[in-house]
């Protein structure tokens, strides 16, 4: 199990290596990438801000929840913070399991939980301004 919040580029292979073991037949890896558009607008870059002292324990909690549901799963998660350019990896969840159905399910469950409960925020710099992204809402900076 490995949980990182880091300003350095995420090494996806390293996270996968952290979950692989001789009994694991399946690895499912989700990577979130900075897209060049959002809300129909061109995006130039992002800034991510984290409450790191809480984010890492929240990730660990999600990892434990995954193990409660899929006891054979091994989990690694990382979220990047700071300035990110288009095409850079912002978040990774890697899960290994003996078989593939549970690897997919556990990985998807992990990223969904991470997105709703890990205190990390996205500031989007787009053609129409700069916004804090709060769930479904984009709130202009300063208001």
């Amino acid at each position, binding site marked *: 199990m490995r949980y990182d919040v880091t300003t350095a580029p995420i090494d996806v292979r390293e996270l996968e290596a952290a979950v692989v073991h001789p009994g694991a037949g399946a690895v499912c890896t989700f990577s979130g990438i900075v897209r060049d558009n959002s809300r129909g607008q061109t995006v130039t870059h992002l800034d991510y801000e984290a409450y790191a002292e809480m984010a890492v324990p929240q990730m660990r909690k999600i990892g434990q929840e995954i193990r409660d549901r899929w006891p054979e799963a091994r989990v690694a998660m990382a979220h990047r913070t700071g300035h990110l350019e288009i095409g850079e990896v912002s978040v990774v969840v890697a899960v290994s399991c003996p078989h593939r159905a549970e690897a997919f399910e556990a990985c998807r469950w992990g990223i969904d939980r991470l997105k709703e*409960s890990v*205190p990390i*925020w996205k*500031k989007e710099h787009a053609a129409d301004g700069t916004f*804090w992204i*709060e769930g479904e809402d984009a709130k202009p900076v300063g208001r």
Partner: protein
Amino acid sequence: MAVAIAVRVRFFARLRELAGVETETLQIAPNSSLADAYDALRARHSSLPARDGVRGAVNQEFAGWSERVSEGDELAFIPPVSGGRR
């Protein structure tokens, strides 16, 4: 009994920008709730939004608004996380 306890407050993301501070110390009556603490902070920083849409955390764990705060606690007030479309 103490007339006030001191808690450490942290703001994040949009709330940090609206409050204009990242961390501060708040003196508050013993036995106050997280809601009481937020209301006291709103009196000080008028641009902070109403409680709905804000979540509170005590000592790095999400907490309900009625949770009591204690001397030395770290309170955090945080907007919805980035979530993003599934």
